[in-house]
């Protein structure tokens, strides 16, 4: 296997998503599927569930890799099917507004294609410790890992471009890590995912012209999870995702478990008349990463989005250091 297909993997997903996003957005607007951008004083209506366009990119690129790299086809297929299952759950959530516990349980299903195709290596590489043999525990953990990444990315989409931008940074870090670790399969699969997410970011960054919807954030979360489970470097990925882990863990612990938006009495932030967003001081408000960013002073949405991405870039830098602390690299 060589890296000769790397530009093809990236370009296919990037172009497919770049071209399909305006069409999906136009379709959604035509159907009246729009969401209000609550962090802007003018409250514009933005097409929702446009994250579907990322699926076009994922499928086009991973499908192509299945054809040109037959020896690793089961891995690419497992990643693609995991993403599709997660996207399906996200789409159901978009239509039915699932309960948080149901989302967590249903998202475990996205790990099943990886198990069915045996597209995993149950010997994770841990810094200082080295390779650990987890023949029994690893496959048991896969569905939960996929559920965690899907729901974590779903919770990490509070402002324009935060989810797609931070996912782009994390996937870039993983691609670099797989390149340094000599894992060409991981590099190719990572580039196939990166192209789509980066193209979507072009439309989703501040000021957003499209919203991904749960379908998009679940798909991106499963893409990250399945990429890591099928190619390794689990600890590197956890470190790269520390801001997102911090966000979801703080939300869960501050509201006392899995609760829907309606059962949370106080919103974490408030839009001021001058367009600035401030953190709510009420102790009953959930502790989100955005509320932490706003703790010292109110900020504009663009500043919050930039801070979100800078934090992810910082943790990604730590992730690369972590890679060098693992043995066999």
């Amino acid at each position: 296997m060589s890296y000769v297909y790397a530009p093809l993997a990236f370009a296919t997903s990037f172009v497919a998503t770049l071209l399909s996003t305006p069409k999906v957005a136009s379709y959604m607007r035509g159907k009246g599927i729009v969401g209000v951008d609550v962090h802007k004083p003018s409250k514009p209506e933005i097409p929702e569930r446009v994250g579907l366009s990322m699926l076009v990119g994922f499928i086009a690129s991973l499908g192509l890799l299945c054809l040109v790299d037959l020896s690793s086809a089961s891995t690419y297929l497992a990643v693609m099917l995991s993403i599709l299952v997660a996207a399906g759950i996200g789409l159901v959530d978009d239509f039915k507004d699932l309960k948080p516990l149901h989302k967590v349980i249903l998202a475990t299903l996205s790990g099943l294609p990886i198990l069915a195709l045996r597209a995993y290596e149950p010997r994770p590489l841990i810094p200082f410790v080295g390779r650990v043999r987890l023949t029994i525990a690893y496959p048991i953990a896969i569905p939960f890992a996929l559920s965690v990444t899907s729901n974590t990315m779903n919770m990490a989409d509070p402002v324009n471009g935060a989810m797609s931008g931070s996912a782009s940074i994390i996937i870039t870090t993983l691609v670099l890590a797989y390149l340094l670790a000599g894992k060409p399969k991981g590099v190719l699969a990572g580039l196939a995912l990166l192209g789509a997410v980066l193209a979507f970011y072009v439309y989703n960054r501040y000021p957003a012209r499209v919203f991904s919807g749960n379908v998009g954030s679940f798909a991106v979360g499963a893409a990250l999870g399945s990429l890591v489970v099928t190619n390794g470097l689990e600890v590197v990925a956890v470190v790269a995702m520390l801001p997102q882990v911090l966000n979801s863990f703080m939300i869960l612990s501050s509201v006392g478990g899995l609760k829907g938006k309606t059962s949370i009495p106080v919103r974490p932030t408030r839009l001021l008349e001058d367009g600035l967003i401030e953190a709510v001081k009420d102790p009953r408000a959930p502790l989100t990463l955005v509320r932490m960013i706003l703790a010292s002073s109110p900020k504009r949405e663009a500043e919050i989005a930039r801070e979100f991405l800078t934090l992810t870039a910082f943790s990604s830098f730590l992730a690369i250091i972590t890679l060098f602390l693992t043995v066999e690299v």
Partner: protein
Amino acid sequence: MSVRGTVWIYVDIFFAWLSMLLGLYLIDRLVDLAPILEEFMSRTQVGVVEVLITALLFLLWLIAWRILTVKAFRRIIGS
């Protein structure tokens, strides 16, 4: 500039990373339960117990991280 007011989050993430690595280093260097556990259990059972211990330690690390983060947040937002 916004970064000045958010330095504490970078420090928080840095300490989380550092403590995670320090924990892994200490586990590797100081704690090797396998020879003791293998007296009573099979190799597979030892593996399962080690995974459970790791999961428990990860949970404790998360709780410690939460306590520190909430304290820091309250200090910042309260001032």
